[in-house]
């Protein structure tokens, strides 16, 4: 194997990209019109555009989740946060005299975002100040948050008829859906803040060893607090998109299981659940893979629940490919010589349940 091919094979984005390409190719073979894009009314339409538009909320949630996971935490409450923020925004707009008023819509968004930030701060305090294990701290809000969302909507589905709010999910800008730009903007903002400044490295160092980072002069608790707030903010915007897509808020079903999809996207993207490293580009790829899989399954006329079977296969395949233990076994069998003992870096972290 040439050096170049080997380095490409070992690149962390190789497998996610390969999976995505294989899925796109398989789709095109199965349905030749899959990749075609047409211009209609000055807007671009086509399956690829749909995949991008529908994956926007997942990308947003997964970006926040990436930061949380890179500190060694996990945020299970994002789905509930989506539901609460969507419900509050819809409730405010539905009570307003003129639902198309821009001021009304922005007030609603600001209010909902404010509540989401408070929820994120709650998670952050539980994890960083009180020191509760992240999976449990956020489980509280995941369970109670669904109840709160239904409390806001009083168990009903709030339907609204607001043009500006609808645009968040279905509007167009420069021929492309607005949702794509929102997700892209969030991705660029987070990437800029973490990779153009020292912030990203600080987050990773806190994920690597919180106590050592604190002794090195990093305010670890503050960083941990911050990532949960960012995650909640991302979830809130994703919640706006989900509710805007259907112009209604359903406290029970908005963002249901999005936390699992988001964690999946992060893991597919190569970020370890043990923390210490994060790859935003991998996360976005992961989200695209999940949405492409869902779209593929819909296009093949398989029930959406059965799509979970395929998801299970993808999860296990990606995790196995990325697991050092599996790679070591695989390459030993392939080459016939035992590989040098690879010290697994996550050994110390084994006892942390995720």
């Amino acid at each position, binding site marked *: 194997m040439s050096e170049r091919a080997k380095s490409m094979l070992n690149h962390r984005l190789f497998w996610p990209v390969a999976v995505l390409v294989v899925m796109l190719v398989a789709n095109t073979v199965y349905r030749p019109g899959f990749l075609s894009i047409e211009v209609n009314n000055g807007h671009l339409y086509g399956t690829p555009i749909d995949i991008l538009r529908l994956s926007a909320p997942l990308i947003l949630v997964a970006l926040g989740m990436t930061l949380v996971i890179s500190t060694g935490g996990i945020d299970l409450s994002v789905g509930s946060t989506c539901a609460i923020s969507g419900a509050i925004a819809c409730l405010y707009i539905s009570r307003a005299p003129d639902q198309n008023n821009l001021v009304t819509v922005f007030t609603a968004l600001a209010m909902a975002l404010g509540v989401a930030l408070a929820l994120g701060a709650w998670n952050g305090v539980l994890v960083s100040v*009180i*020191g509760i294990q992240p999976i449990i701290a956020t489980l509280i809000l995941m369970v*109670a948050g669904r109840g709160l969302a239904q409390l806001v909507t009083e168990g009903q589905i709030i339907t609204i008829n607001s043009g500006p709010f609808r645009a968040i999910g279905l509007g167009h800008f420069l021929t492309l859906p607005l949702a794509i730009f929102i997700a892209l903007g969030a991705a660029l903002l987070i990437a800029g803040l973490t990779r153009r400044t020292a912030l990203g490295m600080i987050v990773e160092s806190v994920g690597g060893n919180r106590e050592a980072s604190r002794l090195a002069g990093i305010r670890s608790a503050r960083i941990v607090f911050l990532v949960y707030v960012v995650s909640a903010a991302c979830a809130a915007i994703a919640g706006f998109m989900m509710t805007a897509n259907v112009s209604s808020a359903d406290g029970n079903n908005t963002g249901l299981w999005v936390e699992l999809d988001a*964690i999946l996207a992060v893991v597919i993207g190569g970020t370890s*659940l043990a923390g210490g490293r994060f790859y935003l580009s991998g996360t976005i790829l992961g989200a695209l893979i999940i949405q492409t899989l869902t779209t593929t399954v819909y296009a093949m006329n398989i029930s959406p629940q059965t799509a979970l079977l395929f998801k299970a296969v993808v999860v296990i395949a990606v*995790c196995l490919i990325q697991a050092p*233990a599996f790679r070591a076994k695989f390459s030993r069998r392939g080459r016939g010589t035992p590989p040098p003992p690879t010290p697994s870096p996550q050994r110390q972290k084994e006892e942390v349940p995720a």
Partner: protein
Amino acid sequence: MTSTSLTTGPSWARLPRRHVPVLVTLALLLVMYGIGVSQYRAFSNIQVIFNVFIDNGFLLVVAVGMTFVILTGGIDLSVGSVVAMTAMVSAWLLQSGLPTLLVLVIALLIGPTLGFLMGCAIHFFDLQPFIVTLAGMFFARGMCTFISDASIPITDGFWTTMSQYRIGDPRGNFVSASVLIAFAVVLVAAYVLAYTRLGRNVYAIGGNPQSALLMGLPVARTRIAVYTISGLCSAIGGILLSFYTLSGAPLIAVGMELDVIAAVVIGGTVLTGGSGYIFGTVLGVLVLGVIQTLITFDGGLSSWWTKIVIGGLLFAFILFQRLIGIRYK
């Protein structure tokens, strides 16, 4: 791990710290029951307690399996889906005319097999339990709809007999057969955890896997065993649920894993592993059941208050465990 407090103090403070969470849960349960009895006259009827067991028997069995997994410091997200898959498979096989006994055996084998495979993936490939059991959850839920999109009724004689079987006293109070099965599972599990090698290994691995390995304990076998046990408990839970509903539905028990985890945590089991009791889990399930009963009795409160109260209780208990200084990362 703080097993016993070495400091001398007043005699009540010498209570082993690991017993405190269970006792607090017990106190909470008694207080909630007291509130119920003082507010509603019908609440003091013994049948109310029996109904809590009848309605939550399958939850109890699944929570027992989850306690094993959490004691080793792992987590099993697949339980709700496995419950649904077991009910679905048995309904489907019965519909296609297989003998009852064969269906029972097959249904009880699927869960442990899936659990065994997940345990192997977790142990041999160093994968996170969270992700592996998430895949298991997707797989089992997908299988449900793969079998059928609609719910399948069960008309088998054995199932209907078990469903209607009542054990009661002359005054009309009764429990169903499921409750007895659930109790049997609880007793066996409590015995295994307290008095067998497997049980002590589970605690040792939860306390510190490295130390357990260095001590020469069979870490691999134990870790795979707990996921298999959890799978078996989910399968039994699935059978009990199908006794209860007399059908297999693809979307039943969605989100049940959260209730189960909440019950185990409220029961005083520490999520990093190594500390907790089956008895606590029983109390945790009872707390959830009594909350639902209270909300039903009130009539004015909507169903979503259940979730908010459970969330609040989770918070209170975790904070409490933190305050009394149980090892909690």
